[in-house]
């Protein structure tokens, strides 16, 4: 979908708004065509969590402890549900691959010629895409969260909620810039897919998708006093899934919360700059080779 938004060149704010509204409608229609799919598909995405819930219940049942790394059984269920939400913000399906492909088949050329900034264009497209997704997925999500409300701790205070929302926005940008930078590697490498695959693997393990990163607190790294969790804390990966969920659940508080948000914001800046630089160097190289 993002590749076909040729007409998105706001000639004025009103025109831009109108174009966005049309795009939104088309996206929605497109989704609704696969109606059976769509409703069922969103709910089915929650199915794997059912298995995880039973697994963790069995794990807790066999130990005598009340919590693992600060998480009770209910906390873990709530955590998995929350990561469905946080990943809905930070995951960018097909973004890196799409960029690499447009470099390979030359369609990126038009952004070298036209006065449209490629990265901004991609960002606009992704925002539209996400908005449509949220609009349509809101009901299934709300349904599931309502049904499972007993697993959640009481709603946190306003500061925590604000921090949560901020971290969500940052994780969207972080996920976006990371994938765009990866896609830009297409200017240098033919087969970006292997690199993207490696990234996906690391993400899968370290983003908190599979388990709360706190569980790594007991894993040693060979350096005295530093656990694996501490190392991962400084990497960008945990901020795409784990961090926001942990914030909502109250696992990150006070000074730690502030410093973590700072690290997250820092990574957003780093990746934004990285993709800018990659674009600049990449297009220079690209034109030099005649495309």
């Amino acid at each position, binding site marked *: 979908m993002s590749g076909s938004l040729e007409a998105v060149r706001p000639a004025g704010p009103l025109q831009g708004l109108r174009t966005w509204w049309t795009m939104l409608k088309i996206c929605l229609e497109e989704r609704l065509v696969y109606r059976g799919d769509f409703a069922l598909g969103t709910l089915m995405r929650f199915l794997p969590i059912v*298995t995880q819930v039973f697994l963790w219940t069995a794990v807790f049942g066999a130990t005598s402890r009340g919590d693992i790394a600060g998480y009770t059984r209910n906390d873990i269920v709530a955590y998995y549900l929350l990561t469905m939400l946080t990943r809905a913000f930070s995951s960018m399906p097909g973004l890196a691959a799409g960029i690499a492909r447009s470099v390979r088949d030359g369609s990126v050329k038009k952004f070298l010629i036209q006065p449209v900034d490629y990265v901004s264009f991609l960002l606009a497209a992704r925002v539209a895409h996400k908005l449509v997704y949220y609009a349509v997925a809101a009901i299934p999500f709300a349904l599931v969260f309502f049904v499972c409300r007993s697993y959640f701790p009481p709603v946190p205070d306003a500061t925590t909620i604000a921090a949560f929302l901020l971290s969500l926005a940052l994780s969207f940008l972080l996920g976006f810039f990371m994938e765009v930078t990866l896609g830009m590697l297409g200017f240098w490498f033919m087969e970006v897919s292997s690199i993207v695959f490696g990234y996906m693997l690391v993400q899968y393990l370290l983003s908190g998708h599979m388990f709360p990163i706190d569980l*790594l607190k007991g*894993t040693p790294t060979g350096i005295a006093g530093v656990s694996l969790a501490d190392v991962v804390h400084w990497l960008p990966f945990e901020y795409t899934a784990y961090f926001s969920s942990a914030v909502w659940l109250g696992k990150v508080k006070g000074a730690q919360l502030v410093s973590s948000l700072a690290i997250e914001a820092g990574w957003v800046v780093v990746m934004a700059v990285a993709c800018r630089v990659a674009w600049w160097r990449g297009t220079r190289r690209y034109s030099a080779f005649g495309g």
Partner: protein
Amino acid sequence: MARYFAIFLTFARACLVRDMTFRANFILECLTSLGWMSMNLAFYLLVFTFTSEIGKGTGWSKEPFFAFVATGLIINSVVQAFFMPSAEELTEMVRTGGLDAVLVQPLDAQFLLSMHRVDFSALANGAVGVGLLAWAMARMDHAPPALAWLLYPLLLLCGVAILYGLVIMLAAATILMGRNQSLYDFWFYITNFSRYPAEIYSGPWGGPLRMICTFVIPILLVVNVPARVIAQPFTGELWIGVACAVIAAAVALVVSRLVFQRALARYRSASS
């Protein structure tokens, strides 16, 4: 019949030649599946740092659990290598009219549509599974009787048969609906329930779920029965499981074939 086997060999040989021609891609595919699998193994190791058993009193401590995982790897890799690739192509075939060509040939359509393509890279996981099984069995304190070792391959085949039946049912659905959701997604969601020992499904919700996944869509019989036979102390009770698995395999094969034939009879064919 020998004829069918000869035809299958021709297909398999062609796929092998193709894989060896695009060797880099083949290796990449192997590494991909190995990659995801190792992430999951790392997760299991992590879980075992917090507990010594999955489920109280179930007997699924570390080594038996990894024997369970290994069994799952072996069965799933066989299905992914020999049956899934053809089934996944079915959507395309329905769309382009390739299915028409199959229906016109004097050969069993189900055979052709489920076995004309082999994905050898999927066997990588199976190979690791065998290694993992050897490791787990060596470190376990109980040694299974010779009988268990005889039953194990048979039960692996039953597991493959049950999953094959499932693949065919999904393929029949594809033919009837002319496709929406990717076959692979449904596959993933349904088989996801069989990733862990059936004992984890207990309680007011778990009990019924366990019943459904054992007697209605018997995916819990696929890995659990062979894994238990080989990794848990061999008791008389296990024979019930063995019987269930064998019956489920037979039923799966028969029912799926009937459904598939019905689907073919109602095939609409893309308009021209």
